[in-house]
């Protein structure tokens, strides 16, 4: 450790989590206003108690990775944004990305509903640390949320802030929803008054983002984790999860026909108890619609780690597919949605995804048995043809899903080839709109 000796070490000793937060986990059971929030989590450390560099050092030690899906280390992003800001003598922008986009995922909306001030605290802390002039919380304008009006709830929370105490003014920006809208370059395009689409650029948003400034775009769950690390320290964070994937995490869990629920867990926890209610199951979708299917036997024994599952935890979706459902039908349904959500800018994605979706639909229909070999061949060919050939990772993620389906649902594919579908219930399980 290369601690800078500035005589302020005793001032930065982390608080210990208040008993309430210790007992109930990272999130409260009901929405908290600003006073309740302070009582639950403890006060936000004042600017003079967290010298510049200290927060970034703690984030680096904690090993925080982005919780939006890509899992990029936050510390490295901070270093690159602050480096670009210094080099270009510009003050950076911080964006907390609350555009969950994915219809099946609810963890970000759940977090914003219950603990909006945790996200706002994180924005303030990152804003102070990077000496940012702008701190933006971006949320979907029409965010579907079973609990109530999320936009109004977050707007109220922003208005409860004391700007003088925070030292950072937070702008709440409502942006149009959509699967691609939350991709960082697309989000920055929206915030710059552009069309909200991924763009071709020599520089990443870390160098040229909102208003041309170096911009840190970070998923709201990650931003909330910063607020917790500032209070309780990096060691507290590392007490959760595994050495490779540390920290508490939120997951959206579908277990059978029940409504999805958001659970608080961490890497290394057994997967099985989360989805046991759905038994008997056929497979589990991990990560999101850009994620991968894993087989039921693996799901029964694996712990929630990338190493054991063989796939990244991504945006934290865990969806168990009951045995009476057809995995090929489910994948075709999701794939059709993904094809429709293509921004339509890039030729390979625009042309390839609808063809892949149509081929998946044929595979899901046992009446096409005779053409089975050709369909699978086309799927593999087109998958290779769209991968890595777009402005964003939408084609790559879509192809990942299809390839995992071809592997995990091999038995089902063979049944379809024989003209039989083993799924009695042909209705789609996961939402696609």
């Amino acid at each position, binding site marked *: 450790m290369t601690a800078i000796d500035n005589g302020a070490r005793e001032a930065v000793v982390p608080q210990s989590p208040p008993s309430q937060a210790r007992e109930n986990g990272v999130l409260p059971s009901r929405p908290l206003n600003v006073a309740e929030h302070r009582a639950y989590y403890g006060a936000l450390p004042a600017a003079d108690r967290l010298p510049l560099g200290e927060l970034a050092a703690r984030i680096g030690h904690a090993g925080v990775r982005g919780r939006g899906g890509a899992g990029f280390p936050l510390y490295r992003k901070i270093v690159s944004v602050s480096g670009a800001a210094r080099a270009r003598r510009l003050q950076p922008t911080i964006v907390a990305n609350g555009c969950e986009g994915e219809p099946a995922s609810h963890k970000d909306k759940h977090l914003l509903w219950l603990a909006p001030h945790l996200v706002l605290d994180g924005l303030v802390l990152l804003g102070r640390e990077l000496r940012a002039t702008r701190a933006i919380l971006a949320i979907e304008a029409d965010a579907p949320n079973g609990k109530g009006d999320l936009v109004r709830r977050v707007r109220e929370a922003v208005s409860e802030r004391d700007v003088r105490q925070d030292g950072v003014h937070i702008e709440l920006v409502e942006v149009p929803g959509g699967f691609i809208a939350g991709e960082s370059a697309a989000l920055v395009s929206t915030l710059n008054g552009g069309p909200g*689409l*991924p763009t*071709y650029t020599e520089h990443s948003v870390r160098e040229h983002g909102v208003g041309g400034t170096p911009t840190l775009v970070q998923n709201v769950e990650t931003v909330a984790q910063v607020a917790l690390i500032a209070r309780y320290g990096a060691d507290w964070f590392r007490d959760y999860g595994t050495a490779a994937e540390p920290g508490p995490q939120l997951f959206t869990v579908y277990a059978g026909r029940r409504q999805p629920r958001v659970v608080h867990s961490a890497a290394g926890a057994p997967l099985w108890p989360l989805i046991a209610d759905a038994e008997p199951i056929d497979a589990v979708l991990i990560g999101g619609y850009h994620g991968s299917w894993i087989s039921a036997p693996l799901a029964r024994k694996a712990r929630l780690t990338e190493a054991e599952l063989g796939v990244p935890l991504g945006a934290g979706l865990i969806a168990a597919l009951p045995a009476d459902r057809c995995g090929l039908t489910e994948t075709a349904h999701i794939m059709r949605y993904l094809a429709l959500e293509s921004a339509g*800018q*890039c*030729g*390979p994605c625009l*042309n390839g995804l609808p063809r892949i979706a149509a081929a998946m639909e044929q595979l899901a229909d046992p009446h096409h048995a005779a053409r089975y070999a050709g369909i699978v061949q086309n799927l593999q060919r087109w998958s290779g*043809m769209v991968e890595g*050939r777009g402005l964003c990772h939408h084609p790559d993620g879509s192809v990942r899903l299809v390839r995992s389906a071809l592997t995990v649902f091999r038995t089902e594919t063979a049944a379809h080839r024989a003209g039989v579908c083993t799924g009695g219930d042909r209705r789609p399980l996961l939402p696609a709109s």
Partner: protein
Amino acid sequence: MRAKDSAELAVDWGTCKGHGLCAELLPDHITLDDWGYPIVGAGPVSAAAAKRARRAVADCPALALKLKSTAGK
């Protein structure tokens, strides 16, 4: 030590309209997919093709073909 920087071809996928001119000019580096969009081979542009590559970049009707310098110091 090389006198010139080596360069790689890249496509701005949001701009490319699949005209296919690049594949005509640079058949050893670019082929077309099922829909007429360029598939760029991996690796730097060969010295023999460097001039044609610059020509292809300049002539792309959509200005979507890029030549990116990959030379480090």
